[in-house]
C-alpha cells in the first residue's frame, strides 16, 4: 500500500510541473503582460522601462525565467498582489478554508444521497422508481449550477424570505445564535452543489450496480442464503465502488468548476470569488496563483481518489 501511494505521489509531481509549465507559458506568451501598461505610458522613458525590465529579470531567456519561477512557486512564493500589496499566498490562505468547507460538506452530502438512490434505482431497474430517479438525475446534471443557484435564491430568499442570499464573511461564530446564522447562510451554496453532484454520482452508482447484478458471485451468495442487505452492501457495492471511484476521479475538475460558479452566485468569499475579483481588477499575480492552486487541488483530490482505490480494491493494495 505504501509503495503504491509513493508511486502515485511520484506521478503527481510531473503532472504539477507540466501544469505549471502550461500556466507559465500562457503568461510568457501573452501579449498583454503586466508591463503592457508601462509600454503605453508616455511618462516612462525607454531607459527607465529597460531598467524595470532588467530589475524584474524579464531580459533573461524564457527557460531560465521558467526555472526561477517554478523554484519560487514550489517553495510557496507566489508573488505579491498588484492591488492589495499582500503576498498571494496569504490572500489564498484566507479564502481557501471557505472553499474547502463548502466543497467538502457538499460532496459528503452528495455521496450520502447518491449511494442509496443509485442502489435503489439499480435494484428496481426499469420500474417507475428507477425511472423517477433517473429522470431527476438527468434534470439535475442538465441544470447549470448558476441557474439552480439563482432559482434557489428566488424561491427561498426573495419569495419566502427564509434564508439570506448573500454570504456574510464578516460573521464571527461566537455563540449559538451566530452559529445558526452561519449554518443558514451555508445552506443554499451547499444545496446548489449537492443538487448537481448527486445527479452525477447517482448515475455512476446506478450504472456500476447494474453491471454487478447479473454476476455469478451474486447468485452464489443468494444460493448460500445470505440476506439481501448483506449481498447488496458487502458484496455488490464493494465491487461497484471500484468503477465509481475511477469516474469520480475523472470528474474532479468539474467539482471545482461548480464550486467556482456557486461561490460567484452567492458571493461566498472563497478562492473562486477571489479569482473572478482579481480578473476584474487585472491582478495578474493573484490570477496566476489561484490557477495554480486549483491545479494543486485537482492533483491532491486525485491522490485521495487513488488512496480510496487502494482501500476498496485489494488488488491495488497488494500491487497486482
Amino acid at each position, binding site marked *: 500500500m505504501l509503495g503504491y501511494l509513493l508511486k502515485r505521489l511520484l506521478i503527481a509531481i510531473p503532472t504539477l510541473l507540466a501544469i505549471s509549465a502550461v500556466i507559465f507559458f500562457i503568461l510568457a506568451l501573452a501579449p498583454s503582460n503586466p508591463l503592457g501598461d508601462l509600454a503605453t505610458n508616455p511618462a516612462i522613458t525607454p531607459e527607465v522601462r529597460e531598467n524595470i525590465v532588467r530589475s524584474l529579470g524579464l531580459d533573461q531567456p524564457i527557460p531560465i525565467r521558467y526555472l526561477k519561477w517554478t523554484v519560487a512557486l514550489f517553495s510557496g512564493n507566489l508573488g505579491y498582489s498588484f492591488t492589495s500589496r499582500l503576498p498571494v499566498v496569504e490572500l489564498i490562505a484566507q479564502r481557501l478554508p471557505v472553499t474547502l468547507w463548502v466543497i467538502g460538506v457538499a460532496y459528503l452530502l452528495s455521496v450520502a444521497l447518491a449511494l442509496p438512490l443509485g442502489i435503489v434505482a439499480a435494484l428496481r431497474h426499469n420500474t417507475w422508481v428507477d425511472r423517477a430517479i433517473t429522470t431527476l438525475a438527468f434534470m439535475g446534471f*442538465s441544470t*447549470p449550477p448558476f441557474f439552480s443557484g439563482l432559482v434557489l435564491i428566488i424561491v427561498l430568499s426573495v419569495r419566502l424570505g427564509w434564508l439570506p442570499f448573500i454570504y456574510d464573511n464578516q460573521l464571527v461564530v461566537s455563540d449559538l445564535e451566530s452559529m445558526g446564522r452561519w449554518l443558514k447562510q451555508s445552506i443554499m451554496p451547499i444545496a446548489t452543489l449537492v443538487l448537481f453532484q448527486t445527479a452525477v454520482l447517482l448515475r455512476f452508482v446506478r450504472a456500476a450496480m447494474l453491471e454487478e447484478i447479473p454476476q455469478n458471485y451474486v447468485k452464489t451468495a443468494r444460493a448460500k442464503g445470505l440476506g439481501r442487505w448483506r449481498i447488496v452492501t458487502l458484496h455488490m457495492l464493494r465491487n461497484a465502488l471500484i468503477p465509481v471511484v475511477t469516474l469520480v476521479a475523472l470528474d474532479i475538475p*468539474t467539482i471545482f468548476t461548480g464550486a467556482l460558479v456557486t461561490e460567484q452566485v452567492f458571493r461566498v468569499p472563497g478562492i473562486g470569488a477571489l479569482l473572478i475579483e482579481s480578473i476584474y481588477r487585472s491582478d495578474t499575480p493573484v490570477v496566476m496563483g489561484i490557477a495554480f492552486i486549483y491545479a494543486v487541488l485537482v492533483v491532491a483530490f486525485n491522490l485521495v481518489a487513488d488512496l480510496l482505490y487502494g482501500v476498496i480494491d485489494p488488488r491495488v493494495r497488494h500491487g497486482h
Partner: protein
Amino acid sequence: MAINTDLAPGAVAPAGSKNRVWERLWGDRTAQLALVVLGMLMLAIALGPLLYSGSPSTIDFARAFLPPGIGQPLGTNDLGQDQLARLLIGGRISLAVGLAATLVGISLGVAIGALAGFCGGWVDVVLMRVTDLFLALPQLPLVLLVVYLLGDSVRRALGPERGIFLLIVLLIGGLSWMSVARLVRAGFLSLKQRTFVQAAVALGARPWGIVKTHLLPNILGPVIVAATIGVGNALLAESTLSFLGVGFPPDVPTWGRMLYDAQNYIESAPYLVLAPGVAIFLTVLCINTLGDRLRDSLDPTSR
C-alpha cells in the same frame, strides 16, 4: 466542460443501418419529445428574429423593467431592451459556440485517438500521457486565465465579437477532446485485432486506406453520441464563462450574459433570470436526452 464518462471506452457498437437507428430513436417517446422540443427551439432561433418585431438592442429607459405582458412577452431589462428579442439572438450565438467548439473538440479527439490507437508504441504512450494531463487540468480556472491574458489582444486583432468567438471556441474545443480521444483509441485497438482489418493489412492496403475505410466508419456511432453530448457541454461552458462576465462583450446577449446581468435585479425582476435560465436548461436537457437515447439505439445491448 464536464467529462462525460458514460462514453468510457467499451465495446465498439455495431454499425447497423442508419435507418434502423433512426427508427429506433424516433420510436422512443422520450427521444421523440426531446427532438421535437429541440427542433422548435432551433426553428425559433433561426426564424424568430425575422418574424418578431422587438429589437434586441434599442435602449429605452421609459420601458425599463416592464414585467412580461402584451408587447413584451418576456419583459424588458434594466435598459428597456426586449428580453424575447435578446433571447432569440443570444440563442444563435450560444448554439453557434456550442456547435463550433464541439467540431473542434471532436476533430482533435478523433485525430489524436486515431493516431494513438493506430500507431501504438511510443506515440500511443506520449499521446495518452498528454490526454491524462489534460484531464487533470482545472478547466474553468485555466479558461478564465487564458481569456484574461489573451482576450484584449485577440479583441484588438480580430474585432471584439469575432475575436472572442474564435478564442472561446478554440478554448472550449481544445479542452474537451480527451474523452473522444480515449474512445477512438480504444475502438481502434479492438478493431485492429479483427480479422477483416488483418486481412486488409495482409492484402497490402495502405495505412491511411485502412483507417479511412475500415476503422473510422466502425467507430462512427460512439463518436456521434459523444458529439451530441459535447454540444450540450460546450453550450454550458460558454454560458458559464458569460455568466462570470468574462466571455462576450456586454452588448452581445448570450444566454449566460443575460443571466449575469439579471442577477443584480433578482429581487425586483426575477423574470429576467427565469427566461434565459430555462432556455439553457431546456436546450441542454434535450441534447443530453438525445445523446443518451442515441447511445441506446446504436447499442441495444447497453442497459
